[in-house]
């Protein structure tokens, strides 16, 4: 394992591991709320932070965190108060953020779009000591929120209206989700880059859904996929001289395709296991009265599953 002999590879692997955990952990709540592309929007906004970091010669990671958090709060506010023109406001926020980044970085002394590229597409080998410290702190926050408040975030993401009636602070939890997503974007920025962040938030979750039945299992499988692809991509890029960010994203999509292909036969086997010698199928009218039809409809999930799953 000569790969571990280099300090820059150690740092890269730590960063990759943390991104593999945090991105799907936040992404699952975004996907559940059907805001899968929110990470992409935050990524655009974070570019302004990177540009500001260069211009003010401050840490681009912390600057991007500050601006991304601000942007995500703004997006959440637009979601509350904006009615019909919400999407237009969001578009202005996204592209304003992107343009701001390009503008600031070119205003910075000696800055050019080339500096921006490493943030747009990731640059694992240039991850510094201080970057790793920042990534560790931010990742700790993300894990604390996504695991510690999982039941509350699940309830709010599933059904806001119902969550309000259970007395949960719905707005505070929505804001927290947005802020956590923003923090995750900046955690992942150095590894996969701002433009590819969203893929790592969404695709592992979509892949996990193909074979999982519940939220908890989806969460675990998505994080497992996330860690495998980020570590796998980093190692591959070390040996094969390919860009790590792109490798990671392509690996994630490959994982999605693989699990989708596996899901159909899995569901079919589940049907076969249930049907043989199941007399409930033949005495439907009686069992409906007795059990409220629970057994009579036992065969529905398996036959429906592939159709519902591939619609992701």
């Amino acid at each position, binding site marked *: 394992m000569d790969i571990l002999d280099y300090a820059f590879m150690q740092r890269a692997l730590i960063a990759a591991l943390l991104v593999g955990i945090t991105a799907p952990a936040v992404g*699952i709540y975004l*996907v*559940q*709320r*059907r805001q*899968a592309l929110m990470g992409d929007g935050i990524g655009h906004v974070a570019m302004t932070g990177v540009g500001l970091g260069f211009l003010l010669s401050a840490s681009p990671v912390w600057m991007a965190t500050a601006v991304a958090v601000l942007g995500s709060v703004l997006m959440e506010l637009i979601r509350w108060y904006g*009615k019909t023109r919400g999407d237009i406001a969001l578009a202005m926020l996204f592209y304003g953020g992107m343009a701001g980044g390009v503008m600031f970085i070119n205003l910075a002394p000696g800055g050019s779009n080339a500096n921006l590229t490493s943030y747009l597409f990731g640059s694992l080998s240039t991850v510094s000591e201080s970057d790793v410290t920042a990534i560790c702190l931010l990742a700790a926050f993300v894990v604390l929120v996504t695991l510690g*408040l*999982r*039941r*509350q975030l*699940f*309830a709010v*993401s*599933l*059904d806001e*209206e*119902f*969550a*309000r*009636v*259970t*007395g*949960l602070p719905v707005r505070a939890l929505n804001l927290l989700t947005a802020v956590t997503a923003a923090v995750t974007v900046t955690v992942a920025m150095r590894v996969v880059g701002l433009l590819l962040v969203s893929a790592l938030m969404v695709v592992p*979750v979509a892949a996990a*859904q193909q074979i*999982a*039945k*519940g*939220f*908890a299992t*989806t969460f675990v499988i998505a994080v497992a996929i996330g860690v495998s692809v980020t570590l796998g991509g980093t190692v591959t890029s070390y040996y094969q001289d390919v860009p790590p960010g792109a490798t990671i994203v392509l690996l994630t999509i490959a994982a999605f395709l693989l699990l989708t292909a596996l899901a159909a036969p899995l569901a079919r086997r589940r049907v076969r296991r249930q049907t043989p010698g199941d007399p409930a199928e033949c005495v439907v009218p009686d069992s*409906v*009265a007795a*059990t*409220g*039809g*629970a*057994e009579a*409809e036992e065969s*529905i*999930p*398996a036959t*429906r*599953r592939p159709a*519902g799953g591939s619609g992701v």
Partner: protein
Amino acid sequence: MSEPVISLRGVRAELGSRPVLRGIDLTVHHGEVVALLGANGSGKSTAVRTVIGQVPVTAGEIELFGTPRRRFRDWRRVGYVPQRTTAAGGVPATVTEVVSSGRLSRTRFGMLRKADHDAVRAALELVGMAERAKDSVNALSGGQHQRVLIARALAAEPELLIMDEPMAGVDLASQQVLADTLEKQVSEGASVLLVLHELGPLEPLIDRAVVLRDGCVLHDGPPPKAVGQHALPGHDHVHPHADHDAAPIRTGLLG
């Protein structure tokens, strides 16, 4: 003993800038089952959603268990069954996971203890969905999905149930399960506010009907053309009510 559990006085609400409620009065007393009826767009769902705070009111007062809704924090006493729209969220969830989220109002920091897990299981058994506990909600039929949503509301063991069109798109078997579940809750002292399109199989349970039209209360009294049902044997609920506007109520109380 007959404190109103829900009380709306002169409530007005707008969606966009269109007035949907134009000053409605609605009271649900302890142990009472009230149906909110009306055509599509009459404001019945909006009325219920003002009660839970999902739709802001522009005028009027809302009280829950005698507390102004703004200051009401005791949400564990309320079970809510929203109108079923799209099946589930973007991520699969098991029946148990969904029903457990209804228990959060009784937990501290979202930690589920043994009593909480027991309550979730009991709620699932009540609606006959215990065998499906580990299945994905995406795999359920419309009626089964509705039963899960009702189990979620019952998981907190509420004193007041608020249901928005619980029978919409529900198969006959599930309708019967829902009616039985509701009857059991009522016999144990629960109060219920139901939004209904038609009385249907719940008819014998309903003490009073409030009919809305264009955001105004058109009728508040015995359920329309349901008086005969209340005379049938089997309708033996006794519900004490407050004295005010007792006259229209009493006609619906033959128990």
